[in-house]
């Protein structure tokens, strides 16, 4: 069943049971929102979405008001605009004037609305909160309650997306406080560190701790990709600045997971930049010729594992080279050693001499090539992977 109503003089026909907000959006008519998010239930908390409904006594919140046949709605009349300005002034009256250094500046729904409606920051108006910043020891979620607009999106994200019910509001009125559990630390309130609450927060009240100070929305480049951990196949955006991953952000249109991620996908990316990464081919000295000269000439180095406090490059003079020593070589040398050895083994011992282990972390294309290498080049079907495990 459909219903037809008039929005700003335009006839809109849409499914019965829709809200005014949904009807307007389906017709491309913009109504601002803060506490509303399409993935979450509607609570009508912030009142920024008010619209004028002809015949109604008060302005109605578009996100919660169902449409009716013949309804006449104005979304941008002067009274509507004035009311929205008032809502924003109220929010600003208890909000730090922090946009200069705020992590989400440029990516903040409140900032955008204040700009759109030309609201000025009130110098001295009423009481302001002075909550402790970053009071929670968990390593992932940064909290600044001074910026919280009590929209409840985090509460609903945790309850409705994550189904963990960590967040809720304690007290009323000016004393209203967003709390985890019974005003506990998040992890003690059964938090699973998924970061969904951060992803749904419209302002800078919740943020990813690992990314503090690492780059704001306009300073990073986002690259959509698929998670490297489990087989669910979540998609997300790697946020890159100066060649480093500084944050992972949800991609609302990710086909499998939407905005949801788990702690590994959202916060487990930094292994990529770990100093333990192998950064040069390593060959045991026994397979190389002319090791001493190459080491003296500085073309090769003795491998010193990273991450043990020493740096890898220049230890060669002090270290004795045995046949077992790993030498950092160039690619040509390492590839030649492997290819020659494989060719010789194939000639002397046949294809049965080889075993290959493919990878459940490599791409399809890489696994295909590896399979072709085993079967076409080495002539063996002895190729397997660790998926059984």
């Amino acid at each position, binding site marked *: 069943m459909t219903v037809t109503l008039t929005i700003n003089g335009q006839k809109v026909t849409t499914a019965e049971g829709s809200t005014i907000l949904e009807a307007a959006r389906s017709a491309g008519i913009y109504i601002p929102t803060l506490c509303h998010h399409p993935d979450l239930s509607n609570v009508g908390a912030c009142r920024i979405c008010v619209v004028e409904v002809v015949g109604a006594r008060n302005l109605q919140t578009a996100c919660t008001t169902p449409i009716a046949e013949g309804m006449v709605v104005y979304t941008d009349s002067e009274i509507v605009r004035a009311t929205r300005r008032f809502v924003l002034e109220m929010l600003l009256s208890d909000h730090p004037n922090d946009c200069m250094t705020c992590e989400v500046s440029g990516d903040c729904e409140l900032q955008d609305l204040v700009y759109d409606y030309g609201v000025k920051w009130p110098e001295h108006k009423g009481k302001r909160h002075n909550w402790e910043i970053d009071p929670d020891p968990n390593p992932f979620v940064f909290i600044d309650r001074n910026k919280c607009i009590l929209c409840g999106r985090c509460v609903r994200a945790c309850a409705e997306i994550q189904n963990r019910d960590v967040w809720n509001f304690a007290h009323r009125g000016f004393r209203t406080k967003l709390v985890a559990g019974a005003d506990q630390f998040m992890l003690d309130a059964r938090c699973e560190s998924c970061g969904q609450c951060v992803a749904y927060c419209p302002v800078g009240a919740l943020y990813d701790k690992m990314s503090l100070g690492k780059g704001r929305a306009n300073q990073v480049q986002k690259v*959509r990709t698929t998670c490297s951990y*489990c087989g669910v196949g979540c998609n997300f955006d790697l946020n890159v600045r100066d060649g480093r991953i500084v944050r992972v952000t949800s991609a609302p249109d990710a086909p499998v997971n939407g905005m949801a991620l788990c702690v590994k996908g959202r916060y487990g990316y930094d292994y990529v930049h770990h100093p333990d990464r192998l950064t040069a081919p390593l060959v045991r000295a026994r397979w190389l010729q002319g090791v001493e000269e190459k080491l003296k000439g500085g073309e090769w180095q003795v491998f010193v594992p990273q991450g043990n406090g020493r740096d890898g490059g220049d230890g060669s003079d002090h270290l004795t080279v045995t046949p077992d020593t790993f030498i950092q070589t160039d690619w040509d040398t390492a590839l030649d050693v492997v290819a020659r050895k494989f060719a010789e083994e*194939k000639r002397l011992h046949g294809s049965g*001499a080889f*075993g290959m282990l493919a990878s*459940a972390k490599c791409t399809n294309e890489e*696994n295909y090539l590896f399979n072709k290498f085993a079967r076409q080049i080495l002539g063996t*079907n002895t190729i397997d992977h660790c998926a059984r495990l």
Partner: protein
Amino acid sequence: MTNTIADITTQSKCIFIIGSNTTEQHPVIGIKVRRAKRYLGAKLVVADPRRIDIADYADLYIRHKPGTDIALLNGLMHIIIRESWHDQEFIATRTEGFEELKATVEKYTPQMVSEITGVPVEQLEAAARMLAENRPGALLYAMGITQHTVGVLNVMSCANLQMLLGNIGKPGSGLNPLRGQSNVQGACDMGGLPNYYPGYQRVNDPAVRQKFEQAWGVSLSDQVGLTVTEMVDAAGRGDIRCLYIIGEDPMTSEPDLNHVRHALENTHFLVVQELFMTGAAECADVILPAASFAEKEGTFTNTERRIQRVRQAIEPPGEARPDAWIIVQLAKRMLALGAVSPRDDAPYAGWDYWGVSDVMREINTLTPIYAGVTYQRLEEGAQLHWPVPDEHYPGTPILHVNKFSRGLGKFAAVDHMPPAELPDDEYPFILTTGRVLYHWHGGAMTRRARNLKTMYPEAMIEIHPHDARKVGIRDRQLVKLASRRGEIVSRALVTDRAAPGLVFATFHFPESAANFLTNPALDPLAKIPEYKVCAVKVVPMPDDQRL
């Protein structure tokens, strides 16, 4: 998976999870299951020897003894048939072998099953009723089903149950293995298996072999190769002289690690292509530094057979290179050395690719289930679940809709068999292994993700409070865990998540990886080791004895 995550978690009336710690291993599927239960009215039945997190959300939690899955499933089917709850039309038109199944499960009376599994009779009756009354229902399973000597039979049992209920081929139903790693599905799809070319085309099927011989321009072996566990044995004996390992660390993921280390050290020439100095890499002759997922282009295939793009965001560090580049360089050198001489006229004899999408084109031609998976379609946003037989085919989100790939679905009656190793006086506990939320697989990546490590910094074993008291262990105390194959030292977490008589350990931390203890006894069909059951003893240690 026969079905998709979306249809299971929005259209299923009953989700039955057996042998999958879903919220910790496949967290985003876990949260969708919780949501289905909480907001969409789906029933949730969880069967697991450990009281895992998802059990807390279940309508019915069944704690059966490790290694008794077949008995449990046969018992449920017994009740379903006794009550005539089975889907007679589906069975008549879509399956064969029902009479044999019926004869077998007839023996599994609730009484008998209760004795084998330790599950109360009333719970068995209630579970069977819940599965029968709420259809379509989806069954989800993971390593808790497959990592047994009877792994393949376990899977058949799950399939029997779903066919019996008619839970196949429709939204919200199906037989759904959750695959552990990002691209396990793709590694199998792409021929990372000893018996299959890409797309599950048998190496010993002459027509298939001929197709690949023509494409690659060489004659190919018709001998099924060795599986990973057999490979390790052969390397230990010196029969396999060269091992080439990419992106895997058998030094944490294989059973009986002391044996694996011996085998790798004995391998004449070991090449490891890796991000980090893993246990296997330490034994290598040559280590080739590989690029991480953020440093390369390609595709992954997820557990619901969905092909998705992996995109390069940053440059690899130093001289690290994408695995594809490395393999191609080696192949070209081998060709130059004359290690093999493919016929020139074969279309895919050579190794000149101008990018991963070019490799995908070769895959399209040779792999019918990936025939229509092109980069162009993926970039345009096509949602492709294989099989995708051609470029216009929309993909196959749900398998077996009107017909099984083999025609009729076959009920394979299976009997309960006890695990290969059971507790005795010397090794009185059952050890079962798995993962935790904050870590992943061998741990090489998550242990190097700073905050994941902070959250779960060292190995822990879980033990039930009663047992802890019996052996004299306090919470967080160091304990030694020993099996017939090895021992590890770890901290004890005293919790009733573990069942009495059961201890749980992970393999995320190399120094105390559970796989020093596990039994390499293999499933005779799938060659999967029995990780989920082996016998151990637990000995308390004074705290200063670590090292």
